[in-house]
């Protein structure tokens, strides 16, 4: 009973509510343990992913050594250098980010600073619909509708810039509807909702008083955004861009269908290429031995890249949100 008086006393610092009785029946303790185990499952699964896939990939790591980062990928000749896929992943993710980030941040600013609240909700619903369309449907549309259509545009751009330094190297022939750039565009569509919603959360933490202060000084909306919103939320926006990058790197099925499946390292963005998730999805069916081990190894690399990016991004976004709520 002394516990009760102590808890009810005014000197007890405010904390989370707790049961009155310190005697805890068995069922109560069991429930706590079950909940703890369920929570720990997240950490257990992450560790198991790393251990089990690395174990399956060890044959590739042992056979190739540093050759895993080589440029030769030729399953028929037992050569499994993965650099072309790492390059393709980086290029397509970079294209996706360059296209998606201005659009996403623009929509986030539109939602938070321009339109009234009753318009913001329908706009959010519409943007979220982009995320509801499954990856394989983006891929189907990409390969059957979008790629044949955009190939014509690539051709005219390609013939226009042919021979010009830099531009010719980036956009000149060979061109193909299924290419790095097409994959980048489709990935951009797919990551726009996540980058938009995360940027919006970050921008929403900008204190109203900062914004009103800027307006009171006579700032236009744009000047308010650059002077009050941007300094406060740039860190968080960088974090949400990184999370979008992680998504773009791991997005598999859409990329597998529209990237062109060609293990080449080239500066030509309109040429067919391949990426890590795409090659795993496309070639796993016929793989065995070192080949299969190499594909799982690509998954290990992908897991490592995305976990690192996500840890950094979440740390940045979390920090920005705490700063905002403080």
């Amino acid at each position: 009973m002394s516990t009760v008086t102590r808890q009810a006393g005014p000197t007890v610092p405010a904390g989370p509510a707790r049961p009155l009785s310190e005697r805890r029946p068995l069922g109560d303790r069991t429930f706590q343990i079950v909940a703890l185990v369920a929570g720990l499952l997240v950490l257990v699964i992450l560790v198991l992913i790393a251990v089990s896939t690395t174990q399956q990939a060890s044959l590739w790591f042992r056979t190739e050594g540093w050759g895993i980062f080589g440029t030769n990928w030729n399953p028929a000749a037992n050569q499994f250098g993965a650099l072309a896929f790492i390059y393709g992943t980086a290029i397509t993710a970079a294209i996706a980010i360059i296209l998606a980030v201005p659009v996403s941040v623009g929509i986030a600013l539109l939602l938070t600073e321009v339109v009234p609240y009753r318009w913001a909700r329908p706009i959010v619903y519409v943007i979220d619909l982009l995320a509801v369309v499954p990856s394989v449907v983006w891929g189907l549309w990409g390969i059957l509708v979008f790629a044949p259509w955009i190939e014509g545009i690539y051709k005219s751009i390609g013939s226009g810039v042919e021979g010009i330094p830099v531009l010719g190297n980036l956009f000149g022939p060979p061109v193909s509807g299924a290419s790095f750039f097409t994959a980048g565009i489709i990935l951009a569509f797919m990551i726009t909702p996540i980058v938009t919603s995360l940027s919006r959360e970050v921008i929403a933490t900008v204190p109203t008083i900062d914004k009103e202060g800027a307006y009171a000084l006579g700032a236009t909306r744009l000047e308010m955004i650059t002077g009050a919103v941007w300094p406060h939320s740039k860190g968080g926006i960088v974090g949400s861009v990184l999370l979008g990058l992680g998504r773009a790197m791991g997005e598999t099925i859409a990329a597998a269908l529209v990237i062109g499946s060609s293990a080449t390292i080239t500066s030509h963005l309109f040429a067919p290429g391949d990426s890590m998730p795409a090659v795993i999805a496309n070639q796993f069916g016929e793989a065995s031995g070192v080949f299969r081990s190499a594909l799982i190894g690509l998954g290990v690399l992908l897991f490592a890249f995305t976990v690192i990016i996500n840890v950094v991004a979440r740390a940045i976004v979390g920090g920005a949100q705490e700063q905002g709520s403080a």
Partner: protein
Amino acid sequence: MAVITGQEKLDLREPKGWRRTKNRTATVLMITAFVLALVPLVFVLITTIAKGISIISWSFLTQPIPPQVAPADQGGIGPAVLGTIEITAVATAIAVPLGILGAIYLNEYGGKGVLARLIGFFSDVMTGVPSIVMGLFLFSIWVVYFGFSGFAGALALAALMLPIVIRSTDEMLKLVPNPLREGSYALGATKARVTLTVVLPAAIGGIVSGALLAVARAAGETAPLLFTILTVMTANPNVFSGPNTAIPAQIFSNATSPYVGAQDRAWGAALTLIVIAFVLMIVARMVTARFTRFSR
């Protein structure tokens, strides 16, 4: 009313000239950004509906999968519909209870402790793990030892759903006001009882809606299934044993087919998938609207 006399009147209108031009350009660019995001969405939806609507029928959803050379009016995706229902149901039955329990630990027991913060942080990180990695994970830990099965696919989808359910449930539990818990404790209830009979029911609308969105996401996933269910063309009512198939996996194999019939069936399957996802999303919104008691 302060009357300003002898002074120039304060002009509060939008400034003229270059500043106004820049400001208006920025607003136009923001609206353009929204339109740019809208265009692909509209095109994907219109194409899928236009090409899929003539294919979809009851017999399309129930007939066996024909060889790819078959014309569009033959066969359907019956085995894939069955597989998707089986696999998604098992994945939901695994991931939703575990996710809710995990969120209960985070919010009701862990508090601001190091372990709870660590689990919360890594749940966020886990939502960023590519779905294909979940497929490779289940291949390495399950398929290698027990063979391909719908259950392996369900485990991969469950691993994908778990952090999503934890995060959405956690958000909802945070919104339940503390006086509700304190009142129950004052009546002498144990923590487990308060959590199960007071806190969870208070947040149930948001929890169900979050779970439905996780199901919608999982039902459309292809990559985790490629290495776990093997994607056969025959129906397999036994989810626990033998290779299986699913709607997204069928679309993936038909998308690269040179046969028009197979492509048409892929559009029909794509429309089916989109309709499933939209229905789940609309139900989730309705649940939110009907049962939400506490919101931000």
